[in-house]
């Protein structure tokens, strides 16, 4: 057993205001901004680690403020491992773990958990999977019994799968009818085409999965070498480890699998991927472009630069589209990563008749950064940095946040000082680096613009821009669409689809 402790001193990074600094006078004056009170040291929550005999790593953050314990068993293997034609196999399998195990049917398992006032759930994504338990600390042992049962002896009942499968098929219809969800789905598809999370679930894929496939998948992938256990709450390592060993020690160690490093689709020119949603009151924008991975200096510089451009309410993007023009309820941009790639993203929903105007504003904001017409100022960059640095402690109110960060380090192979070096990395970026990185890697680069909206209304104006438009359906298939003509009465008709 070893223990790691992460301590971070924030005292050195007090308010870094670049607005005219207000002098703090003893006399009270409400016309000027008050200075800060004495700050105090923020220490990151301390994580302690242990290991079971089968190699399963256990990370615990103690928190005795409530008589509760939360556990999350996090898995490496996700939808990326799905075989051709059975996309959603991994996530379906994770979902079925808690639908009956050992001698307990799904209903009995649920009742037993509810008697203990415990919640046990399982789910999977493209990147991984998890089995999570929330329990009163006094009911930890019997709840762990049930959790272990789902891992070591899941039933994969045919009858339960039929019900879940039907529900999954219906859920596809829900995804396809919601413009925001369509935009996220299509953005993933455009990013990775037919690999990784570019592969979209369809009826065919869901129907192809049988319980035997899940059983085989679980016996290959549901092994300790693919998992890490993260725990927070009212327990100690001394209490916890023997309880875990007793229940999970016999779980097969197996061999771990690691996701490949996937490649993003190339973007040679800024292009629109349009999905028609007739009658939509807004157009949903989801833009992205590739950027350097976490762990690089450029990533850090871009993180700060983006904060100034679109990462805060008061950043340029939202101040323009929302607070000046009133085109949207909100617009922002952020940096994101997954297995082997990172990207810059921008998202907003704009009034349908302001679709092209909004796109033009975004294009001009990006161009202004590049052209030295309106480069990101030192002031904006310092505000962006300060927002990140001073907002850091507030993220740690729940122990689960720290655990999710530790899980990401493991899951995505992030630098080991991802959390404890967070402030230092943000502080190390100079305004010039942030400005230049944002201009060179984001603002001057072509991007991919996914727009979901009402083609009959926006098509003509959008087509007049000098940007290529690819039409896709809600499943990412290419379709042909004619440019609508400006006859207002036709605005409510669906455009022709080949």
């Amino acid at each position, binding site marked *: 057993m070893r223990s790691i402790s992460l301590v971070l001193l*924030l005292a050195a990074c007090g*308010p870094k*205001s670049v607005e005219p600094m207000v002098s703090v006078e003893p006399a*009270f004056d*409400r*016309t000027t*901004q*008050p*200075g*800060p*009170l*004495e*700050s*105090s*040291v923020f220490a990151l929550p301390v994580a302690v680690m242990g290991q079971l005999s089968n190699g399963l790593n256990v990370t615990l953050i103690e*928190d005795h*403020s*409530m*008589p*509760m314990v939360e556990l999350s068993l996090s898995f490496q293997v996700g939808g990326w491992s799905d075989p051709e034609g059975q996309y959603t196999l991994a996530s379906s399998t994770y979902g079925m773990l808690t639908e009956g195990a050992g001698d307990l049917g799904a209903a009995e398992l*649920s*009742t037993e958990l*509810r*008697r203990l006032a*415990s919640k046990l759930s399982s789910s999977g994504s493209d990147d991984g999977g998890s089995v999570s338990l*929330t329990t*009163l600390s006094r009911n930890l042992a019997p709840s762990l019994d049930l959790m272990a049962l789902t891992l070591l002896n899941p039933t994969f009942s045919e009858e339960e799968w039929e*019900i879940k499968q*039907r529900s999954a*098929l*219906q859920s596809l*219809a*829900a995804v*396809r*009818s*919601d*413009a925001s969800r369509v935009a996220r789905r299509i953005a993933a598809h455009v990013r990775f085409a037919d690999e990784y999370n570019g592969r979209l679930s369809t*009826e065919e894929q869901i129907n192809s999965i049988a319980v035997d496939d899940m059983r085989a998948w679980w016996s290959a992938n549901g092994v300790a070498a693919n998992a890490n256990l993260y725990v927070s709450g009212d327990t100690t390592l001394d209490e916890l480890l023997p309880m875990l060993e007793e229940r999970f020690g016999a779980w097969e160690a197996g061999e771990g699998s690691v996701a490949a490093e996937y490649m993003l689709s190339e973007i040679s020119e800024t292009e629109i991927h349009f999905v028609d949603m007739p*009658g939509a*009151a*807004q157009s*949903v924008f989801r833009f992205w472009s590739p950027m350097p991975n976490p762990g690089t200096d450029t990533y850090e510089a871009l993180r700060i630069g983006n904060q100034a451009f679109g990462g*805060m*309410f*008061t950043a340029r993007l939202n101040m323009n589209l929302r*607070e000046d023009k*009133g*085109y*949207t*309820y909100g617009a922002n941009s952020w940096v994101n990563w997954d297995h082997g790639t990172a990207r810059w993203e921008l998202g907003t929903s*704009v009034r349908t008749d302001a679709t092209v105007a909004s796109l033009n504003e975004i294009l001009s904001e990006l161009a202004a950064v590049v052209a030295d017409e309106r480069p990101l100022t030192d002031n904006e960059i310092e*505000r962006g940095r300060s*927002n990140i*640095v*001073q*907002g850091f*402690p*507030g993220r*740690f*109110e729940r122990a689960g946040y720290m655990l999710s960060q530790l899980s990401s380090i493991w899951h995505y192979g992030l630098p080991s000082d991802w959390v404890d070096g967070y402030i230092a990395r943000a502080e190390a970026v100079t305004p010039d680096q942030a400005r230049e990185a944002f201009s060179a890697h984001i603002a001057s680069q072509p991007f991919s613009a996914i727009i979901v909206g009402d083609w009959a209304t926006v098509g003509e104006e959008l087509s007049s821009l000098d940007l290529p438009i690819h039409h896709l359906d809600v499943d990412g298939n290419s379709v042909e669409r004619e440019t609508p003509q400006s006859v207002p009465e036709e605005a409510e008709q669906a455009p022709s689809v080949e």
Partner: protein
Amino acid sequence: MKALSTVALAASLFSVAAQAQDLSIEHTQYQLENGLTVILAEDHDLPLVQVNVWYHVGSKDEPQGRSGFAHLFEHLMFQGSENQPGEYFDRLQEVGARVNGTTNSDRTNYFEGLGREQLPLALWLESDRMGWLLGVLDQSKIDNQREVVRNERRQRYEIPPYGEVWPDLMAEVFPEGHPYHHPTIGSHEDLEAASLEDVHEWFGTWYGPNNASLVVAGDFDEAEARELIENYFGPIARGPDPELTTAETVVHESETVVRRVEEGVPYDKVWIAWPSAALFAEGDAELDIVSDVLTGGRSSRLTSALVYEQQIAKSVEVYQYSRYLSGVYMIEATAAEGHSTDELVAAIDDVLAGLSESGPTEDELAIAVANIEASFYGGMNTLAAKADRLNTYLFTAGTPDYLQQDLDRYLAVTQEGVQAAAASLNEGRVIFHVTPEATESTTEETD
């Protein structure tokens, strides 16, 4: 979070109601001369503070023709004030604060979570907009935020499938003239009608310190906080004592059925709604238990009957949505492919009849209470949640010191009480069916 202490938790589930409990959020409460209620809750776990201000006004208080105004006004509270005329977010984002405001039918709240050293900044800004707002508000800000709110309406209600069912359903449950008849987001037409004059009147009527309450939670020194609060909020003039909006209890004599064919929705879905007990009123806790007995888990009555045994529903959800003036008891069910919402209603009625004839079993009641008790701990793990809960209790129960009583309500529920609550779910209800408009079918029939 140490201030929330628990003692003597029940050793065995089924004796949970018999155990002595002590569940509280430590705090002190006092009032400024101008009527502002202040609640201080120290918690030194992390060097953070949370400032949470409630104005006791919401969409229930809007005059005819101004639906959505309480919320639009909330947006205007972020447009600066006389001593800080820029965006309200400006100085706060610079110090990494988490800032927002929300409006519902009953109240409008504003909150900042930030480092302990920035408490004066949050108090300065909150007090400045409480006392010195109007001088910087002009027509262009109203025009801009009106557009922003109309976009919020589109994004939250018009784009998501079924998004407009909720406001339409509430308009059926609460008759014309009832404060809950119209939705908090308002109509485009009413939002367009809002004027600068309305803004002045709303502020003058409802935003006085005597109609507000301030919670500060977290890592601060009480004496220091008291002095800052007195300095910043003390000089604000008391406002008029606003007349509280009241409402008659709504009773539907018979069933109202609405059937709607809608474009762009994925499945047949039905909502069944009853006017019900207000928050913390008699019967409120019992209805929460009814919900747990019906859909708390995989083997709960309604879930097991509709989703698993008969397999006529994809999902079913039940909840008691209780507010200040009234609750709404709601059942939402999505039909499985090939089944109609009328089948769902018939099956739901069978289950409800069973529960109102013989009540829940002892086991069902104990399980429900145990799970609700556990949810009390889970829902208190941030300063923001604690601060808002103190204000909820103050506003609704008249005292912030209500956590234990809140839990006690559930511990005191009897099988007979749950049976009576189930029996109250009678014909006096609204049933709202939504069917997708038949277009080109992309999925095969699976009859």
